[in-house]
């Protein structure tokens, strides 16, 4: 049963009804990310797709508010028109997860806290959620934060809701910090570097005074598949600067001199946008249509180790966030998954099984288990928000 809702009050009523019936609820927007983490079994669905529209946009205050069901393309178009952008550069995962014919919603982006290449320099979605409205498991409207850029009044429930995959409540409206888009973008392509050498270069770039806004490493097959990288052969590290045009030229030049890699190429604004959109949307893994996909977050210097550990199992991968985000595609079986877990654990990192058949998703740890003391707090906080335990049961953990 899907309950259509176009207002916050209707969402609250739908929650109250589910609580009264003691029936679990699948919380979603347009459902473009239903394939992430564990599958949800629920008698009811509450969709925020009908709760749409930008409610406030104050470019001079670097603030935009929109209802949870607002399609991301609408928000991005509005920001672009005013010369601004979403700071965390959230991905559109339809190349990975399959197109549903519907665009992803702002609520979905916030509920999953998925950030793109700019995250390494400018923060994640969770860093830019300034205010949130959500219906909790008591069918009450809960507000946290607001519409200002600095706010430490009370517990930061914006952070708690962001990335909670709809398990704590139904997010109905979000206020985000936005920034002016840079005048120009440039990318320094350093070819011929393997993953370890690529990470060394990316660490030097991210640890330079030049305010690098993204750094990724692509294997040869991914480089070959990107039209904007035509003429580059082999694997390559890519370093992005977003600034005023003169600064882009100056900074790329300084980095190029510093690294002195033979065959280095500089991409201009248009080519850069195309390449980084592909990296953001995980297009390098699109050809691996039958594989499972993992997103492993580690300290940047450990990224190459994770790829190396999985290569013998036939997994392919590329690196974002200066080496700290490892994207992997490999056989969709439990044995490979356990090797991903082990590789992430060995370097103190974390993982998310992003795409896999339902049977695999339902039987493995799609994200790491928490230590017992923290798992207890997780259960208590979940109960504090959703006492009847109706929101997206099993989405994050089998027993939650």
């Amino acid at each position, binding site marked *: 049963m899907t309950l259509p809702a176009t207002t916050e009050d209707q969402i609250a009523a739908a929650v109250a009804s589910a609580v009264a019936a003691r029936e679990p609820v699948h919380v979603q927007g347009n459902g473009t990310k239903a394939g992430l983490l564990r599958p949800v079994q629920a008698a009811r669905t509450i969709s925020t797709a009908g709760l749409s529209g930008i409610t406030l946009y*104050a*470019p*001079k*205050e670097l*603030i935009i508010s929109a209802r949870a069901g607002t399609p991301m393309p609408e928000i991005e178009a509005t920001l672009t028109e005013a*010369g601004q952008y979403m700071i965390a550069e959230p991905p559109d995962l339809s190349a990975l997860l399959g197109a549903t014919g519907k665009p992803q919603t702002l609520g979905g982006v916030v509920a999953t*806290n998925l950030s793109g290449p700019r*995250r390494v320099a400018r923060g*994640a979605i*969770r*860093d830019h959620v300034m205010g949130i409205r959500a219906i909790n498991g*008591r069918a*009450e409207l*809960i*507000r*946290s934060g*607001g*519409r*200002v*850029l*600095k*706010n*430490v*009044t*009370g*517990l*930061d*429930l914006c*952070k*708690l809701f*962001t*990335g909670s995959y709809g398990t704590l409540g139904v997010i109905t409206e979000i206020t985000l910090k936005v920034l*002016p*888009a840079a005048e120009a973008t440039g990318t320094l392509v350093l070819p011929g570097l393997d993953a370890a050498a690529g990470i*060394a270069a990316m*660490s030097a770039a991210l*640890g330079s*005074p030049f*305010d690098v806004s993204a750094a990724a490493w692509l294997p040869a097959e991914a480089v070959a598949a990107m039209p904007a990288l035509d003429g580059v052969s082999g694997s390559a590290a890519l370093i992005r600067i977003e600034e*005023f045009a*003169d600064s882009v030229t100056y900074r790329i030049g300084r980095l190029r001199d510093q690294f002195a890699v033979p065959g280095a190429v500089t991409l201009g604004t248009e080519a850069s946008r195309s390449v980084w959109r592909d990296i953001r949307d995980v297009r390098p893994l699109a050809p691996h249509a039958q594989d499972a996909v993992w997103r492993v*977050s580690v*300290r*940047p*210097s450990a990224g190459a180790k994770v790829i190396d550990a999985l290569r013998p199992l036939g997994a392919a991968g590329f690196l974002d966030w200066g080496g*700290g*985000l490892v994207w992997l595609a490999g056989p969709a079986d439990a044995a490979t998954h356990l090797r991903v877990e082990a590789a992430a654990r060995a370097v*103190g990192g*974390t*993982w998310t099984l992003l795409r896999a058949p339902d049977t695999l998703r339902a039987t493995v740890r799609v*994200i790491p288990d928490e*230590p017992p*003391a*923290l798992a207890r*707090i*997780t259960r*208590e*906080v979940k109960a*504090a*928000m959703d006492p009847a335990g109706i929101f997206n049961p099993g989405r994050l953990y089998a027993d939650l």
Partner: protein
Amino acid sequence: MIRQPDPKPDVMRRRDSIVAGLRKLLPESGVIAEPLRLKPYETDGLTAYRQVPLAVALPETTEQVAAILRFCHQNGVRIVPRGAGTSLSGGALPLEDGIVLGMMRMKKILDIDFADRCATVQAGVTNIGITNAVSANNFFYAPDPSSQLACMIGGNVGMNSGGPHCLKYGVTANNLLGLKIVTIEGEIIDIGGAHLDSAGYDWLGLLTGSEGQLAVVTEVTVRILHGPEGARAMLAAFKSNEIAGAAVDAIISSGVIPVALEFMDRPAIHACEEFAHAGYPLDAEAMLIIEVEGSVTEQDILLEKLSDICRRFDPISIRVSQSPEESLAIWKGRKAAFGAVGRISPDYLCMDGTIPTSRLPEVLRRTQEMAAAVNLQVANIFHAGDGNLHPLIMYDANDPASLHKAEVLGADLLKLCVEVGGCLTGEHGVGVEKRDLMHVQFEPHELEQQRRIKSAFDPEWLLNPSKVFPLAEPAVAAAVLPQAA
């Protein structure tokens, strides 16, 4: 005195055995119970309120913190965590029946990793101490609260501290990677690490700014950044607050986000100039300090763009620094602001509301009207780019009526911030100071939701219990800020 929870009679009766129990857990010098030596812990940066604690415990390791919390949990003893005691909202105000858990002995830098751009330190390391530990390699830790020479990173996490450079670099929450925490049951838990964005609930985000009410932070892993090639400041003086506010709007709309964008009004300019002799224009009603970063050429280009914008607003003067020394001089007055105001009036309350920047001129005008109506002086020195106001309300601590007037004005100014779409506190925290104003911003059921989350971590409310939330609902309706003793 602000209302405190009633001391638990059984805890007060057991004071000696509680102190003896703590002494078993710590080295000789780690427990303070003598009245004379407890005195320095009776207050923090909000000196209007004082309370001598039951005892002070000074752990040196996470394991000792765990032992103390376990002991307090078993014995029903309340705990007030404290770093350097610089809180401006009374976040570390002790309780009569509670111990102060002082983190100042945990001051080891545990790990610095330039390749992965992170550092792990104990909670008692000062904010500037992190930057000092990495500055030889031209790295720094970005959030820079005014108290950064003294305040400790554990306290910064507790309050989610900001500072002038947060406009570009973000507040504490945006610069953390990991925490080691101890729960009230004495369990040690690692949150995050050296990587970004752990899966599961964002405990790092929830704990940051939780004012010591959820757990005790013993270690912090922060992001460190390489400094820019250079930085330079400029100063622009205007004929009114409205005009300066419009200039702020124009700067933000231009696509240039300066590293810092600070606003001072006439009383602040005069106080700072008299104190620091920074060469501030005394004929101005408002002044902006703007800082940019980059190579010298990049700085020139940005400062020229900013000067062009300021020239559109009929400035009294524009002064673009030509050297690092001149930039320091421009910042000197701003950095000395609290001391400068302290010279005019030894006692002041520093408020911390945030407003939408479009409401700046109106709020500054109403602030002066409201202050004049009760015959108090207010100086405004604040982070204009993000709308975080810091009205300094001057009063005379020897006159209880004056303090009361200042408190009422402070509360009214914060209500004004909420009324125009802002919030009660941008970076100082709620503490005890704004606790009884929480109902202005939140509905009762919203506060109840936050309380239930605190209870999830600390069911018996032993961790810093008298802060953030009104003590009890019935008191909420009656109280503005309780009158000081």
